[in-house]
């Protein structure tokens, strides 16, 4: 299909398209991690969960020819890894950051090991909703091809915000995260709540992984993630543990990934390594400007990082 070149208009369109295409994994993982961290535990192992989710989704989609089943199984894989992480990090005296790093290694290892037979085959992909049908330009049409999973993620963010602010369960989770002593006094089982939060967070991360292999980039290889899970964990802190801010930050990151190639396609070809690092430089700059010693940790769950 022949298309006319867009010239410089291609750059913002490319970035917008990249945002819509590339933010979903960040979104799901950061929302899952937000849930986990609100309860006071850090799950760094989501990078491994992301890979495991991507692999299992692709494998199941190939074997059963149903991509949505793949998404479900990816979530289940997330639940399994989350259970291992929860079991270990909820033991007394075990440091959850260390467990997270070990889980990254273990999760990636298992994903690569079982994923070997699935690198070559082509699995059915998730369907895309064509929001761009009104346009005659193929570029706009393809930029507005959005996966329903992305929309589900976007819907989860305000839902989670409301959940934390206005529901009883949300209050319990926040209590467990901010002040376990108060929670204990209320008779809540801290162990159960944290367990549920870690497992649910891991479920979301697994689903995020399925997006990678079943929509964009839409394939299974061992380098599919490239650190997105780890960045998403950092995103949560950047977003001050607010689900809506996680949404905005994920969009920012998704868009920033597309800056380098979009600029090259219109001829800006030097310094492309530095352009490729632009999401990180941007985030760092924003953090330096907006953080100040007085208001930084507002919003941080009180027990984060300590082993209560």
């Amino acid at each position, binding site marked *: 299909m022949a298309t006319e070149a867009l010239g410089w208009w291609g750059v913002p369109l490319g970035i917008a398209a990249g945002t819509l295409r590339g933010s979903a994994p960040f979104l799901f993982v950061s929302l899952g991690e937000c849930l986990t961290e609100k309860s006071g535990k850090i799950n760094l192992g989501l990078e491994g969960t992301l890979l495991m989710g991507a692999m299992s989704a692709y494998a199941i989609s190939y074997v059963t020819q149903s991509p949505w089943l793949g998404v479900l199984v990816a979530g289940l894989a997330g639940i399994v890894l989350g259970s291992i992480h929860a079991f270990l990090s909820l033991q007394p005296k*075990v440091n959850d950051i260390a467990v997270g790093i070990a889980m990254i290694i*273990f999760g990636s*290892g*298992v994903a690569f090991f079982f994923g070997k037979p699935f690198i070559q085959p082509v699995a059915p992909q998730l369907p895309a909703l064509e929001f761009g049908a009104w346009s005659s330009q193929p570029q706009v049409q393809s930029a507005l091809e959005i996966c329903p999973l992305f929309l589900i993620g976007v819907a989860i963010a305000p839902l989670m915000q409301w959940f934390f602010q206005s529901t009883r369960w949300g209050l319990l989770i926040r209590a467990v995260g901010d002040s376990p002593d108060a929670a204990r006094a209320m008779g809540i089982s801290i162990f159960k709540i944290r367990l549920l939060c870690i497992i649910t967070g891991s479920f979301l991360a697994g689903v995020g992984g399925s997006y990678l292999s079943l929509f964009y980039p839409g394939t299974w290889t061992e380098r599919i993630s490239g650190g997105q899970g780890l960045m998403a964990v950092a995103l949560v*802190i950047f977003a001050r543990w607010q689900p809506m801010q996680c949404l905005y930050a994920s969009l920012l990151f998704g868009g920033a990934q597309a800056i380098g190639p979009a600029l090259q396609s219109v001829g800006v070809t030097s310094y492309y*390594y530095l352009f490729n690092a632009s999401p990180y430089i941007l985030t760092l700059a924003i953090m330096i400007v907006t953080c100040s*010693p007085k208001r930084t940790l507002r919003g941080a769950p009180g027990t984060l990082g300590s082993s209560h």
Partner: protein
Amino acid sequence: MLNHYHWRGTLEAVCIPIAAIFFSLVLFGIFCALAGADPLGVYASIYKAAFGSWFSFQNTLIRASPLMLTSLCTALPAQLGLMIIGNEGAFVIGGIGAVAVGLAISSAPPTVVQLAMAISGIVCGGLWIGAVGALRYYRAVNETISSLLLNYVAIALLNHLVSGPMRDPSSLNKPSTYPIPALDMLGSIPGTRVHYGLIYGLIACAITYFLMRRTTFGFAARTIGGNIRAARIAGLPVGKLTVAICFLAGSCAGLAGMVEVAAVQGRANESLNANYGYAGILVAFVARHNPLAASLVAVLLGGILASGGILQRLHSLPDATILVFQGLVFLVVLYSESLYGRFRVFQDQSTVRRPPSVPYVPRPTSL
């Protein structure tokens, strides 16, 4: 009763980790059996490849050397209560700095060049993580994120410099800087093929341990890590200490970068980004941020990594198997942390509480 040696505690400290390693080997054996390989053969191969001969042990030591230094980059700030994962970035920046200096003064005598490269690696890596510490103190930017982001920035900088301004035109298909003259490279420890980086690593771990546990500087740092308000009340210069410790942390990783350039690669290129930093984070955590223990855990991890090749060649297991093995060992060892104090046999028998024996007193019946 007053000063008797708690041999049970030591026994516990020995039995639990050995049992953890043993148990993780069992789990891995089950995994291998399910994957179609012979578990006992796998055990023999791992042993052979990691510790089985002097040849293999040198392999282990070579892989352990960078890990000892990079783990300090996480272990040191942890004493302050900071969690820094910028080891990879400091490693890379230290390597770049070392190469730059090494090339600039390449006509000087080898010892001078090596010393200058080491200092450059130390300073560059130190400034990189020192910036993280400064941002933390003065702008309250979370140090975990800033160090993670700086990792990516450092790698991008490496790629940009190595394929652009610092590129050696004759390094065609693998963009690299000019090589350091062979004279100036770090040699091997005589009698072995392990380079001097191992010695640097061991010395750094020892010095760090001494610094943290035996000097007022280290004590001040640990106080900040323990209770920052008390430290402030006591008048400790929190900001300066934070930046100083972060500088030291970065300098260790930067020195590791210099070693990689001066002892192994001979130049800076994309291979500098070899994940030694991330492995160092794991070593630091498993060693509970204790520098001396970190050197031993680094040897353990070096042994695991050294056995990766033989699993592929002899048992036809895919390359991902070594990741599974690493993950299992560390997960089980981390779990074993929680088992201390749980087994009665390891508890000091004189203090084991028995329920107080209450003499039988018949209940008064109503008259």
